[in-house]
């Protein structure tokens, strides 16, 4: 997951400033730009997956030894290695896995289960958890950031800013333990862990509350700071200052004049949160026994199960890439019109 967040945190290359090109070129440009952005993200994902294969190779032991039993002789382990195809060079296995990927085939795990089967329930669960957390993070940080920006320099603004910094500084697991104590073990308001029903999804929506909050609280801290900062930058632009001098109400200035210009910066900031949200999900899922890909990933790494690790990374990476791509396009769209 560290690899993922690193990619996610990396600032997207700045869009080339429009230079008054010909009208014809202007019509083709958005399409070409989209294709380039998609290609860039896809390439990044492929590189990441190659890195995953190489990294697992560098770890001591392999899937054959990890899934063997203690009494197995060297010959037994070798037979298992052959069964799993681990006696072939790593680049060959990577090439095979990559060529099957476009057909939706993620290979077979070290214990003979299809990777797509192993991810069929956990992936939607994690997307539900991450997606809900993402949505709430966006709403909460926009609301808090705008609310503070309407009261620049006043007490409310300072409280929001400091609380946001503090919230971001607290790791997910600390938030989780706090929530668990207060909301489940002391008060009994919410279930302490997630139990899973016959449909593979959490038994009740109440089981999502704490995991979502544990992700939302730190990320809202981070993004509130970004929203507030972007609005502060906008407040110094001539058109916002003019609106201010015209005596328009603060709320109207923030929402109608400052916010639109701040969207690119906010979108980029929030997009980079996706990586941190999914990274945090691994921790939060473990604490709340939430049936997501975090648990799958942790066991896949200890089992040296390359196809399974790559499957998780591909899915998580694709989700992150999509959000980053959307942020790129949003920013390009806005900045493209107003260079």
């Amino acid at each position: 997951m560290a690899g993922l967040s690193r990619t996610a945190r990396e600032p997207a290359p700045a869009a080339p400033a429009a230079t008054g090109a010909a009208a014809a070129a202007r019509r083709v440009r958005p399409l070409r730009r989209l294709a380039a952005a998609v290609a860039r993200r896809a390439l990044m994902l492929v590189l990441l997956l190659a890195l995953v294969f190489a990294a697992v190779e560098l770890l001591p032991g392999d899937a054959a030894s990890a899934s063997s039993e203690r009494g197995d002789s060297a010959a037994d382990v070798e037979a298992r290695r052959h069964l799993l195809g681990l006696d072939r060079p790593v680049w060959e296995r990577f090439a095979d896995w990559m060529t099957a990927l476009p057909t939706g085939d993620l290979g077979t795990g070290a214990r003979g289960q299809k990777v797509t089967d192993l991810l069929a329930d956990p992936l939607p669960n994690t997307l539900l958890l991450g997606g809900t957390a993402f949505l709430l993070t966006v709403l909460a940080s926009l609301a808090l950031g705008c609310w503070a920006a309407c009261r620049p320099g006043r007490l409310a603004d300072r409280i929001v800013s400091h609380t946001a910094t503090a919230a971001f500084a607290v790791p997910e697991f600390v938030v989780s333990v706090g929530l668990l104590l207060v909301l489940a073990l002391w008060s009994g308001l919410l279930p302490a862990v997630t139990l899973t029903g016959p449909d593979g999804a959490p038994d009740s929506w109440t089981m999502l509350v704490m995991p979502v909050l544990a992700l939302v609280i730190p990320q809202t801290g981070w993004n509130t700071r970004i929203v507030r900062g972007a609005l502060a930058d906008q407040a110094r632009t001539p058109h916002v200052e003019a609106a201010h001098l015209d005596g328009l109400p603060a709320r109207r200035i923030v929402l109608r004049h400052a916010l639109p210009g701040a969207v690119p910066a906010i979108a980029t900031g929030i997009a980079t949160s996706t990586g941190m949200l999914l990274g945090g999900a691994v921790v939060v899922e473990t604490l709340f026994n939430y049936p997501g890909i975090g648990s799958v990933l942790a066991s896949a790494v200890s089992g040296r199960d390359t196809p399974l690790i790559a499957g998780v990374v591909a899915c998580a990476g694709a989700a992150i890439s999509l959000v980053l791509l959307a942020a790129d396009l949003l920013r390009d769209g806005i900045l493209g019109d107003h260079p």
Partner: protein
Amino acid sequence: MDINRRQVLWAGGAMGAAALLAACSSGDGGTTDGKAGGDGAPKNGGTLRIGALGRAGAITRDPHGTQANESDYLVIALVFDTLAMPGAKTNTVPRLAASWEPSADLRTWRFKLAEGAAFHDGTPVTAEDVVWSLRRLRATPSGAARLPGVKAPESITADGAGTVVIVSDYANADFPLLTRLATFVMKKDTPDNALDKAPGTGPFMLDWYRGGNARLVRNDKWYGGTVRLDAIEVTMFETPQAMANALLAGQIDVASNAGAVAARTAATRKDIQVLRRPDDMAMPIVMRTAAGSPFADPRVREAMRLVVDRDAMVKQVLSGYGTVANDIMGTGDPAYAKDVPQRERDLEKARKLLAEANFDLSRTYSLVTTEDVSGLAESATLFANQAREAGIKVEVVKQESGAFWDKTWKTGDLYTTYWGTNDSVVFFASKTMVSEAGQNEAGWNDPAFDAAYRKATATADEKERAAALKELQQIEHERSGYLLWGMADGIDLAVAKVRGLPTLPGYGRVQLEHAWLA
């Protein structure tokens, strides 16, 4: 890995949480009677919600596969039956096989199947089904280790509908011991893609299974006796902490194999039973006995065994949830030599032995350990401190699990190991101590021990066999490569109303057929 550090911190947090919680609940005055005894006549009915450890990426449905998840093994063991199973008075008791009988040379074993045993779909179990299942087990990559000395398919045959004959390559008085843990019986010719719905013969039938969690319902026609529970719901937990929290919050009734940390946090709650299954886990220190090792001299090994403070180890490493051991593996065996005098700490004698053996005290010795099981790394650290008091410099080296099994296990001079099946002295002798053993962890080669082992396994006469077993254990106590300081209890947590839970160590933890709800 990042998550491990966090999990450790989390464990601390959970402990603090439970302490606070305990403080609160005891302040309430306690409305429950707190009685965990099994008094009263067993009642029928109810659903038992049990948590077991497991990880989503390691899910295995194949009864003959390598089950890394306790949750998967639990489900499989409730749905399918093995030929024999672990017992209390003798370490092997009948299950699907009602009885067994060896030939005079202890090589050919005839297992008679239980009367009335049938699959969940109503079909009677035949010897053909058993033969097919055993052959399938033998053909898995781990088959040779699970049925050692048995060649498939020719050594496993049916004799009529009710008898299975297995021939061992060598005389083995303890052969039925091998049929306890993995010999799950499925219907003949069950295809690999139908394993997840294959009917078993066990006390419970599978209602549904998904992502490691399952619901099982009672098999009313089970041949093995009355099953009281209507159903069992199994929930898989990635960590013991989350499992303990679920229990404390009332989401599950039993936390299977929850461990000492969870037990300590739950011990103050009067409405929670802490059930201890003794002799569950051995975490011995292995000293390499082969030439070239600093521990090749038996006097050095004895000195090391005199250096350890066993009571302190049990108290600190196991939080008191365990017992002191006497350097003999297989402490749960009914034939365990309780009369061998307990070895105590004796630094004086240890120093003398080390001097006699010219042990190099200026060197620092690495003790390699892992964090594979809880308490293992802690045991190494505490032992290193105790050794320092005798002037032996021991430095603990923590290895990542994969690196340990790849590079240190069976070749290192000094390392910690662990074993989860501890109810057979012969099991350890055959697997880890006889000179040709595949997992001879200490590289031990002791002709007298080998002779005692061969006598014990090749003798049908009970008295002679007992004498040989006694001698075997005496030699092991004196000079093997193991320093076994203590045994960890297996610990289950349960809410007050649950009765009849498993009492046996190791895989015995899955014996839920006699559980009931008060």
